[in-house]
């Protein structure tokens, strides 16, 4: 029994190493000046990669902010439409539910490549291609399944009884939503929001096609470094990428926790 536990612990740590070591390597690369083959550690450390990233000439920070804004807008819109959908699917039984559910979750399975090429020409006609709004719209389908799935689970757990009680006591729909529903689903909103932000922030192909080179996102300025095998700059941009999402997650959690002190009660 004990020997077995040791084996399982060994397996767990082995996977942890597979996970973490490559990340340590990019952290080292990002602070490297010279690191020739076959040295296992760099010959000289330096900040050239970070200087390049921060250099206003390259406008990387500007693109980063633009990307954050874009994904934040996507996240907000996705949440606004996913909350009622999550409620409908989580609480009510109705005709056609199954079909609607399949449609909502289908974008996880159907390649976004196909969807984007299909709508591209229509987006061009409508003047949506090559615009911020167009890219936001094309991000919605792949984000929706994550938002709805999480919120649906939350509504399944909380049910409708508290809302009905508020209504019986004379609250109108708006009051009920703000004072009862929103605090109850706040934790769900945090996890749905973070998932959606991650999905949107990581998109590359959709931005490339629908953005048409006019809408430049962070993944797009990073792609060439990875493609050309520029380890130092690729690593710097990767770290910024990961940190940005982590900061976003942290902020969202703090904000919601502060705003809804009551969120812990379900």
């Amino acid at each position: 029994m004990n020997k077995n536990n040791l084996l399982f612990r060994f397996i767990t740590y082995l996977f942890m190493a597979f996970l973490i070591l490559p990340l340590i390597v990019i952290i080292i690369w990002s602070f490297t000046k010279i690191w020739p083959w076959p040295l296992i550690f760099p010959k000289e450390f330096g900040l050239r990669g970070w200087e390049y990233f921060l250099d206003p000439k390259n406008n990387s920070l500007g693109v980063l902010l633009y990307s954050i804004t874009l994904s934040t807008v996507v996240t907000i819109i996705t949440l606004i439409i996913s909350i009622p959908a999550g409620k409908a699917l989580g609480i009510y039984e109705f005709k056609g539910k199954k079909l609607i559910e399949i449609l909502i979750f289908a974008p996880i399975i159907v390649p976004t490549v196909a969807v984007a090429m299909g709508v591209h020409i229509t987006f061009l006609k409508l003047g949506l291609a090559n615009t911020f709004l167009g890219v936001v719209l094309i991000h919605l389908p792949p984000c929706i399944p994550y938002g709805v799935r999480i919120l649906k689970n939350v509504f399944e757990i909380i049910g409708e009884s508290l809302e009905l009680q508020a209504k019986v006591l004379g609250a109108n729909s708006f009051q009920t939503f703000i004072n009862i529903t929103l605090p109850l689903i706040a934790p769900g909103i945090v996890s749905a929001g973070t998932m959606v932000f991650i999905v949107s922030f990581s998109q590359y192909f959709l931005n490339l096609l629908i953005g048409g080179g006019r809408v430049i996102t962070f993944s797009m300025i990073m792609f060439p470094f990875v493609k050309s095998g520029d380890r130092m700059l690729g690593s710097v941009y990767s770290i910024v990428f990961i940190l940005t999402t982590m900061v976003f997650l942290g902020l969202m959690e703090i904000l919601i926790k502060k705003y809804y002190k009551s969120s812990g009660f379900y």
Partner: protein
Amino acid sequence: MKERLKPYILLIPIMAVIIGIFAFGILMGFLQSIGIFKAAGLTEITLKYYREVLGSKSFIDSLEFSLYIALVSSIISIVLGVLLAYSIYKSKIRTGMERIFNIPIVVPHMVSALLMYNILAQSGTFPRILHSFGLIKEQASFPSLLYGKNGVGIILSYMWKEIPFIAMTTYAILGNISNKLSDVARNLGANNRQVFRHILLPLIGPTVFSSFIIIFAFSFGAYEVPLLLGPTSPQTLPIKAFIEYSNPSLINRPYAMVINMILTFISIVLVWLYNKAFSLMTKYKW
């Protein structure tokens, strides 16, 4: 009456997006694939593009390569992911430690491609370590794992992201299963392996299966990783479709759309399977 309409009203905004963008995009792609494409002056329904694409050797190679990458990476990820979940569950490592396995969720695929490039390229960390042990003499004596037809780099990039994903979804269920079932089985004389095979596996099965569909569909339809770490030939289907699509001549568009439709068709079969898995899942409520 109003109560009966309520769920539909709540669903209007999301359905507008799904139908207006997602379903519409697929429909437009389908129409172009059967030769209806006014912008290029095509108005006649024809299956010629399907015949041509399906009959071309390079398409079949791409289809095989895409399926190979998606299948191999998903199967390995599933097996190792479940093994990892079971190991975390059994080894009872300090709570909070398992959070480390959530990291890959915030790391985009493009970065996981870079991670594997850093490690596995002939000038990467792994060959450097081998060299320091005197196992290889020069860069070229390390086998080139990237950009090859075996797709090792692509598969490992997916595994890096997917093993933890599978492990965490599976672990969430394992952690919720009460020990009673396993204890009963043990009392009746089952050994560890039998408990896993007959108690735990059926419980986690449906979740594992639906996760399999998700990661398979993703790696089957993804664009970036094979573009970054794959060979120039054969290319995966999404890359092939985009190359046809980028052809300045609009007459070429239907070929891109045929490839997209075949991608979509295979995915729809997957959605159907996924749905089957979901209904199985509700059967195993514990």
